[in-house]
């Protein structure tokens, strides 16, 4: 059984297709990276798997559960960190973690506090947090509940080096403990470091997929950035 699986997945916004017959299979326990230019369909794919959007055609499953037929069951197994997710400015970091732990029915506040690494700042209102602190508390809320699949859309976007390194470290730690990750990023170095499998998506279709090292060998390029530029050039 795959952690996430799509079969001929289409999604239209009006007449415009955002996904065109997309097929992916994410193995349980792996970190699956989705890369692609802006508007390629990465966020639409994540939103469908997170039960926020419905497929126009085809199917999407999380651990064998259909996202349309059993959205409640899917939500129990996943957490989703949107690219531009915000915070509740009047709640403290600690209150937010308590709320999330309560809603998932787990006793995980201490773990969340540890993952966030925010120490005393946890008692402050989140409205005063920097962008990096906000991302860390949100990531902590996503991971502390031990989801089977964590969907992270651009987890380090806009973060400085220190915060970005911290977030990547946490993701790797959780992956080693068995959490499956579906991650998107524009940072190819990050993808190389984090992901077991990478899928290059363009105009709603998978144009390449494989292990990072294997892809570099196959195309005779130095890094994923070169591969990305080469494959995108071929698509134009």
């Amino acid at each position: 059984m795959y952690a996430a699986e799509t079969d001929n997945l289409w999604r239209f916004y009006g007449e415009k297709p955002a996904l065109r017959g997309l097929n992916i299979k994410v193995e349980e326990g792996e970190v699956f990276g989705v890369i692609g230019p802006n508007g390629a369909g990465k966020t639409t794919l994540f939103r469908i798997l997170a039960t926020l959007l419905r497929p126009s055609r085809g199917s999407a499953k999380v651990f064998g559960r259909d996202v349309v037929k059993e959205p409640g069951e899917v939500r129990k197994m996943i957490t989703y960190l949107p690219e531009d997710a915000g915070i509740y400015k009047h709640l403290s970091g600690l209150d937010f973690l308590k709320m999330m732990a309560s809603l998932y029915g787990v006793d995980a506040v201490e773990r969340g506090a540890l993952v966030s690494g925010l120490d005393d700042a946890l008692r402050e209102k989140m409205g005063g947090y920097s962008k990096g602190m906000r991302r860390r508390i949100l990531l902590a809320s996503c991971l502390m509940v031990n989801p089977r699949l964590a969907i992270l859309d651009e987890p380090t976007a806009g973060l400085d080096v220190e915060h970005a390194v911290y977030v990547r470290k946490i993701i790797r730690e959780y992956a080693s403990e068995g959490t499956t990750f579906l991650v998107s990023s524009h940072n190819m170095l990050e993808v190389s470091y984090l992901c077991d499998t990478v899928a290059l998506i363009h105009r709603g279709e998978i144009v390449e997929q494989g292990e990072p090292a294997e892809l570099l060998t196959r195309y005779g390029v130095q890094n994923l950035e070169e591969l990305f530029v080469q494959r995108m050039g071929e698509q134009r």
Partner: protein
Amino acid sequence: MRVSALIKKELRELLMERTIIIGVILMPLIILPMIGGALSAAGETFARPTEEIRILLIDNDGGKYTAVFRNSLNRLGFTPVLISGSSGDIQELMKEHGVLAAVVIVRGFSQSLADGQRASVQLFISMSSASTSEMQRISMLEDRVSAAIALLGEVLASERGLQLSFYNQPAKLEGNLFYRGRVMSFAEAESLIQLYFTTNLLIPLVLVIMIATSGTVAATSIGLEKEAKTLEMLLILPIRRTSILLAKLFSSSVIALIGTASMFAGLLIYLSSLGGFVSMAGASSTGASASEPMSSGLVFPLTSPALALLAVVLFVAMAITLSVGILAGVLAGDVRGGQQLAGLMQMPLLLLPFMLLQFTDIGNLPPTLSTALMLNPFTHMLLAIRTIYEEAYLATILHIGAMTAFMAAILAIAAWLFKGERLLTMRISLKRRSPP
């Protein structure tokens, strides 16, 4: 219960919003007592019938009947400041003596009357503003001077052996008005019309404004999630969407309850502060003393059942606007859009019945229009307030029932919109689209 964590979050986010604190909680406590105080103060400025009024009496005649007329003015509550034979600027003289009215008796006044010819008296009034109280003061001065002239006529008639007061009114007009099963005098009816502006018109008007403000609470609640980009994380929580909606509604209702309490307190202060004005209105038209209470049923009844029903009406009305606000929040893209849309949805619903019911009774409207009005929950709010005023409490309860049914229907639509992806994909924008 896991939803309690959401309710706690909702309450904290809502209660920390300045617009909600000011609009829903503080405004009723400030505006209602302010209006009540202003009306009460306005009532104080109306001249009382028994009040002594200083006027300037410029006597250019000096004859026998000038003294009689002066005596008549005294009897009617004037304190004339006498100036004999002056041809100066009347306005300057009024300023100099600190009076707002002057009566001028022209030369030959007594001689004309002695000859059986109509004489002339001039009245000059300084008008300080174009206000209702000023109009009333002018009218009162005119009435009293005319009454003094009538008294002078009676003296002249009695000198000729006639009882003028008898010929002026050979028969006494008596009788009563019937208003909604009650019997009241014509004087009481006049009082009722005066009180109309302070209770039957003003209470619903103020409530309309306050309730419209509270409708934005729920719109803000959802708009905040959209604007702060927390909505997506909220929607993938492992709880039912209806639970999220209920948490929002429950929290908004708590705010509405606080708002209702605030509005109710403000309204009580308002009604209490009208006490002086109300008794004044009654006294001025009935001739009764200012301390004499009005007939029961003519003013808003400050009894326990009436106040309890008023509180329920206010709460349900607020809950309806919250439901409308939730709809607006779902449909709009951000806080401002949600608030604008909530206003746009609520104001016609509130204002249309308010305006129509000021002019006529719903039973007098064409059947199509009255049916359409009855499909508006705020019509029932206004009718419920009116029935409380009339102490027809069974009708009040029926109107509250109708309001509750409307609220349930609006909530059902909001719950439907909350399901699936509509909350994320549906957008109604009030902004003008830029040309391509």
